[in-house]
């Protein structure tokens, strides 16, 4: 008997969402990288994370790379773009945290504007720990960056009305819906956001992330189920590109933060941290992520190489 390759039929397709001027996410009608089954859509995108404040809390080996530019977000962004060519920059307003600098939304808007004017790639705006504060920050930043098609990471169950109304409706930007590792929660939030009047091709989703080894099986399984529902059951509420803030998770786990004095047997801290970041990024890409956010230049290089080899 001759070999017969199994055929997998899909009935759905992930929305194609344009970020900034022309960065396209999604558009696939098959499982991630299943080019033997059909159209894999746009290449997953890679963003680099920068902060509005100097990243004191980052491991020294990481700070070292950005230390000359990290006290100025615009400089930092351009340093990354010039040297590592990410598809987008994720500007995270850590300084807005009420437990920290408690930077005002107006000040954040000012900074965002300056960064936006100086860069050639789209921005993804991220907030701090406080969802309440983020709603206020996002409103002001979205106003300052009106109609830019930038992504705001993210709207959650407790603030989606405010974030959606400002970011998505009033100021023409893209809302990222963030839920906590659960298909039904993700679906529900997507529905609520579209009910505000936001078009499905004007949103992305973050279904929840963690680092490999830290409950990561739940992340992969949630993403698998979301993609299977979107593609095989044609569930339109889940046909939304997924963006995963990998670096938010991987740089705080022990494998990345333990210094060489703390764990001499483990060898180079920088390599360990890069390894955690790469493996987590590929892990979510294999489960359907359309964009990942990273910190280390080496991770950017390797993950890009991985994506290129899988898609070309």
């Amino acid at each position: 008997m001759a070999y017969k390759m199994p055929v997998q039929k899909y009935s759905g397709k992930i929305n194609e969402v344009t970020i900034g001027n022309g960065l396209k996410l999604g558009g696939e009608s098959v499982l991630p990288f299943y080019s033997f089954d059909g159209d894999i859509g746009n290449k997953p995108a890679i963003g680099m994370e920068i902060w509005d404040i100097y990243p004191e809390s980052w491991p020294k080996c990481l700070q070292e790379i950005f230390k000359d530019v990290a006290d100025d977000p615009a400089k930092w962004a351009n340093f990354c773009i010039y040297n590592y060519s990410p598809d987008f920059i994720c500007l995270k307003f850590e300084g807005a945290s009420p437990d920290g600098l408690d930077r005002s939304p107006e000040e954040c808007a000012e900074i965002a504007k300056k960064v936006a004017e100086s860069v050639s790639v789209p921005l993804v705006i991220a907030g701090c720990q406080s969802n309440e504060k983020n709603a206020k920050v996002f409103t002001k930043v979205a106003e300052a960056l009106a109609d830019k098609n930038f992504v705001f990471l993210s709207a959650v169950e407790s603030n989606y009305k405010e974030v959606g109304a400002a970011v998505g409706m009033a100021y023409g930007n893209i809302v990222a819906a963030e839920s906590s590792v659960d298909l039904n929660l993700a679906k529900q939030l997507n529905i609520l956001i579209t009910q505000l009047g936001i078009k499905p091709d004007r949103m992305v989703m973050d279904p929840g992330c963690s680092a490999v080894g830290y409950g990561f099986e739940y992340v992969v399984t949630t993403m698998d189920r979301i993609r299977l529902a979107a593609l095989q059951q044609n569930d339109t509420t889940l046909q939304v590109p997924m963006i995963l803030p990998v670096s938010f998770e991987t740089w705080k786990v022990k494998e990345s933060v333990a210094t060489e004095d703390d764990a001499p047997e483990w060898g180079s801290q920088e390599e360990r941290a890069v390894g955690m970041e790469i493996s987590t990024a590929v892990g979510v890409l294999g489960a359907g992520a359309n964009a990942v956010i990273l910190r280390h230049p080496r991770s950017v290089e390797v993950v890009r190489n991985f994506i290129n080899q899988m898609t070309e």
Partner: protein
Amino acid sequence: MALNGMQIYKLLPQKNCKECGFPTCLAFAMKLAQGNVEAEKCPYMSDDAKAKLSEATAPPMRTVKFGAGDFEYALGGETVLFRHEKTFVNRPRFAVMFSDAMSSDEVDRKIKNVNEVNYTRISEEMHVEIAAFKCEREDKDAFISLIKKVTDSCPKVVPMIMTENTEIAEEAVRQFGDKGPILFGANDQNYEAMVNLAKDHKLLLGVTAAGKEKLYELVEKIQKAGYKELLLDAGSRNLKGTFDDMINIRRTALLSGDRTFGYPTVAFVCDMAQDKMMQLACATLFVEKYASIIVLSDIDYSIALPLFALRQNIFTDPQRPMRIEQGIYKIGAADEESPLLVTVDFALTYFIVSGEVERSKVPAWILIPDAGGYSVLTAWAAGKFNGKSIAKAVKEFEVENKLKTRELIIPGKVAVLKADIEDELPGWKVVVGTEEAATLTNFLRNYKQAAS
């Protein structure tokens, strides 16, 4: 192919004697077809019928074994393409590649690396399970002495003997057969001899061909020759091609129900990139989908820590959450004055936290309340880790009788619980610990100093 009830009925003795616990042979046959009962329940079935039945009811993907003694491993046996459908059962095993064309310095370096990566994570011992040996010089003695050197120096690895030369294979198998090696290299030319060799020594046989179509034909021939302990390689040595092989071989078995491809597969990540971080990227993908042996060029902690952790996660049974028993746990020589920490009953969290407490060398107690088996923030968000559940554990496990301390260290991520816990536990002071366990060691050392 699976048999239906009527087909099975024809294989039964048809005595209707009820000894199987069913009123008739037909009723028993129906249950067998659904896989709800074991064929052994009928004492009167002929051997021939038994063989046919076990063939028909065998899972679509075979479980095979390699190794010996403490280092014996099962591969394959998977029944689903996605872990949420049921569970993945046999985790992939990692190999490091050696070759007789390598300098002895390189071999020594790899031996050292293989031995260095050895640690425990959530009660699982992590190390490279396989050393792969590629025979490139066709020099029997050099090849054998390489295997001997490495297996003598790395007691925990099982050898994978890689040669298409049957004469060299025979000698290697003769020398290292007691380790349950994998014999890799049955191809279209040599498969008869290789099958015999594998049969004689009961070895897992690696079958290789250029492409899925050729591999399929070869496996059919090998199955006809009566051997089924196989490991498949469709010949791709690049990332994209191997991904195609892994997915489609697995889908052929599980979706098409075609057992010709119902065997585990091997991914030669070592050939996909020079750079170890790129190898890590490739290996990550194949842990998720769907390699059973992943061959790397080398190993060190920067790639082992993520890979082994990922594997441990992905191969966790989703229907059996890893939970740890509630109670008060003693770490080191803790006495009634030692610090008391509280965490949740999620095994992952407990093992990480207790590991860090041990590392700090500060004797301490860890209190585990009923937190639903969730991580700290999950349990908190689900309302299972709070003043009430913690106070209940303090009472239930008689902490106030056992310990003099009235200070409780809580995870930094739930600092907001401080007042709530103090309300529920009069006379107690709550100390907010670090957010991550990684920084707990320093915290505990300083904490102890502050107390004394």
